[in-house]
């Protein structure tokens, strides 16, 4: 139980920092809506809905990357991470708290972006929405670990997309497949498998990444 309490406290801390400083979420919101507008001009007339679904996934992945790039900045700036690592709690709770906070930001950004997508481009059905939710979980789980690795490097902002994009390819396949394939369930299964495997791996390996 104390583990869950630690996770809840860490998530609450991130949400509170964001509520006060408003560093990440407005940027993500503005970014994803701007990208959708850019897509309107990038998609020639008559390319069809399928191309729009593909571009939606580009927008989702890049918005997530934007949020993840900021994820560990408060911890880095004030040496908070050292304190958290020294705190008498399981280190993986730090990862889980960060994942949940990033997921909350991403879902909030999508609460605006997805209606805007439906308005501008094409409808989304329940399978497509389930695909978005599952892929969000996957990218936040893997991304918050990768962001912690990138934050310790010299070229942090440059490194993060390079680390995450190859890992995000199965998520894009699953998300686009869930949106455009008549047999979307198979793609949801792929996403669920991805989430399960990589969440466990990230959860188990986080400790090795943050300890000196």
């Amino acid at each position, binding site marked *: 139980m104390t583990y869950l309490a630690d996770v809840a406290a860490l998530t609450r801390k991130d949400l509170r920092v964001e509520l006060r400083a408003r560093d990440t979420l407005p940027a993500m919101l503005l970014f994803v809506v701007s990208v959708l507008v850019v897509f309107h001009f990038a998609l020639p007339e008559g390319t069809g809905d399928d191309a729009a679904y593909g571009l939606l996934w580009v927008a989702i992945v890049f918005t997530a990357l934007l949020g993840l790039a900021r994820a560990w900045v408060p911890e880095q700036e004030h040496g908070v991470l050292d304190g958290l690592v020294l705190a008498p709690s399981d280190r993986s709770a730090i990862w889980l708290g960060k994942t949940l906070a990033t997921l909350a930001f991403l879902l909030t950004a999508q609460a605006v972006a997805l209606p805007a997508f439906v308005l501008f481009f094409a409808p989304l059905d329940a399978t497509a929405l389930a695909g978005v939710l599952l892929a969000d979980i996957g990218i936040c789980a*893997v991304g918050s*670990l990768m962001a912690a*690795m*990138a934050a*310790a*490097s*010299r*070229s942090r902002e440059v*490194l993060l997309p*390079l*680390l995450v*994009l*190859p*890992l995000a*390819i*199965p998520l894009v*396949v*699953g998300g*686009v*497949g869930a949106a455009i394939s008549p047999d979307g369930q*198979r*793609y949801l299964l*792929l996403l669920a*498998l*991805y989430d399960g*495997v*990589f969440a466990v*791996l990230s959860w188990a*390996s986080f400790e*090795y*990444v943050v*300890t*000196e």
Partner: protein
Amino acid sequence: MSTATIRSLPGLAALSAVLMGSAIAFALIVAPEDADQGISQRIFYIHVPIALTSYFCFGLGAWKALNLLWRGDQRYDLESYVAIHQGTIFGALTLITGSIWARASWGVWWTWSSNQLVLFLVLFLFYCAYFMLRFSVEEGPRRARSSAVYALFGVVLIPISFLAIRLAEDFIHPTVFTREGPNMTATMFATFCVSWAAVTLLAYLLYRVELAGKRLDADLRELREALQ
């Protein structure tokens, strides 16, 4: 690394050269011509062993990475790095030979409908990012552990990417190995085995040479620091 293991390298290199020479002779002369694809099918005897060796190197790198995380012995860091370095080199060769084969049999240098090629492209990008990560973190235990974690993600990414690419694309790559066993004649299979052995030995030799070089380099640096 002791001098005895370094002394064994020239012998290993000679053996590797002999085996590689016979593999090429087998592939070009002994193996029968494929009825469907003609001479271009012969690249199969190089392309597939290279691809398998590349997977093997990535697997070895992840295994050493797991050992590093589990036992905390820093010597596994270099071993993991060298294995992944070899895997990336063989992965790039897989992309090149695959591209040549695609050109010969389908008339295009690149096709997104070949799952193996797409998978190797994803893996190649992934492991290039591994080097980016490694070279932008200060040397030390933390870099070793971060690299190890990333290497472990790589072996998990291989089957999941494969599944994803297979779901995403039509499967038109010629399937040589089916569930009923290898779909080729005994001579072809023998040729394939010789080539596979040759490429594996070559990869092992390169792994040992690079490891020996990197260790000597580290020892030298330590000595220099001790003398200053």
